[in-house]
């Protein structure tokens, strides 16, 4: 993979396509999860994330797997786009719920779909309520399994700063759960 990265940095089109095809599924999943919606805007953001990855590869120091690096780029790109997409969704004809993939209607029952939507909305609300830097740390560590040191190294911040942000994010999360029986039910906390 490292050799492939070198060829990408050198401007090899075939290598770039191969690398993006390899890490693309993970990047797409991360973008979809963070945006918590299904719309063709996903394609926009995924493309931006791929462009970002290619642009950032010259700085890639090989301190983590390329896939890890790509997922982080995807998460950051998606988080940065959330606010803009939320604004657009207020008026755009392609609002999230109108762009569910075709299989959904024949997939879960209405009740299941409602439950899934509740979870999606809950995830979206939690991410929106947190300051951006806390949301970033929360997704990278809690959801994707980045260590504090990995986040600190990639973000160029002291590990204690990252740890502090993570603690604040978790405190906000706990307080939100404790204050909302509805959220507790969705999260199945205490069962």
């Amino acid at each position, binding site marked *: 993979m490292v050799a492939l990265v070198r060829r990408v940095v050198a401007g090899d089109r075939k290598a*770039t396509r191969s690398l*993006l095809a390899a890490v693309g599924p993970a990047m797409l999943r991360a973008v979809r999860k963070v945006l918590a919606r299904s719309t063709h805007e996903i394609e926009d953001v995924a493309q931006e994330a791929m462009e970002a*990855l290619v642009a*950032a590869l010259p700085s890639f120091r090989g301190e983590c797997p390329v896939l890890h690096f790509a997922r982080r780029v995807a998460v950051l*790109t998606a988080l940065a786009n959330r606010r803009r997409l939320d604004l657009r969704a207020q008026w755009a004809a392609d609002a999230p719920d109108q762009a569910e993939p075709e299989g959904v209607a024949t997939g879960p029952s209405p009740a299941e779909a409602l439950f899934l939507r509740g979870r999606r909305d809950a995830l979206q609300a939690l991410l929106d309520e947190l300051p951006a*830097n806390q949301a*970033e740390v*929360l997704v990278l560590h809690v959801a994707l399994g980045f260590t504090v040191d990995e986040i600190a190294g990639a973000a160029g*911040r002291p590990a204690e700063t990252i740890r502090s942000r993570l603690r604040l994010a978790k405190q906000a*999360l706990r307080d939100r759960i404790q204050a909302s029986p509805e959220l507790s039910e969705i999260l199945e906390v205490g069962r």
Partner: protein
Amino acid sequence: MSAQPSRCREDLFARSRRGQLSAVEQRALDAHLAVCDLCRAAGAFAALYDAVPDHASAADDVLIARLADRVAGRAAAVGPRRRPRALAIAAGVALLVAAGGAAAWVSVHGFPSRSDESPAAAPPRETQRPRAVAEVAPAPAPPNEEKPATGARVATRHAGVSERARSPRTSLATAAAPTAAELFADANAARRALDLKKATDLYLALDVQFPESAEAPVALVSAGDLLSRLGKSAAALHAFDRYLNRWPDGPLAPEALFGRARTFRQLAHREDEIDAWRRLLRAFPGSVYESAGRQRLGELLR
């Protein structure tokens, strides 16, 4: 509520998320979770994240192949990437995801400009736009008296972006002018197709024709972002400043401030760039640009 331990087991939690825990480590993590409500909350968040469907489908392979091909083609056109001189990965990633995303970073670090336009030679787009045509059907939103422009001239000028715009009906002055939503959709489509020039023109046309529309703020910041990527620095600054003057506390104010800082960097206006970063950090501490801003300020003030 249980007593909160002084320190969480982030190492174990991360390894657990990666599926790398041994049985002993799993027991240690379970013991920690039993007494740490913060990590239990984190665990609930992780479960929620896992449970939210990502709508993966068989069509994903096609989508990824299409995106990979598109991005690879664009990267090949740019040529070999050079290592950023000053910014580390963190700053790079933070920059690249900003205000319209990834390619913003590229523009800072050597994205080939399609224009050699200098700040002095680059009047804001509004001053280049044709004046209003009287017989054009009025736009739904009140026209901006300061910068009247619109209608058929703009619609004709941007014809070719969409099937609708190409149709004979919309190319005539007597036809209905595109709505704000239509312009916005066309601009987004052009941006997706990497036709940045058309996308920029459409975003700016939207702002001029429908300055009070809900789409205008996003269009303005998007236009600034694209103008910056096209190397039209003065016009980009004008777009960002226009947004900030109209919506100083707007939802996209951090993006507009970031865009200003990035554009001043392109122009190598050190003092202006310092002021821009400071303004951003002062107004929006904790934004996604904080890390990149502090790092860049450190470099500038060294």
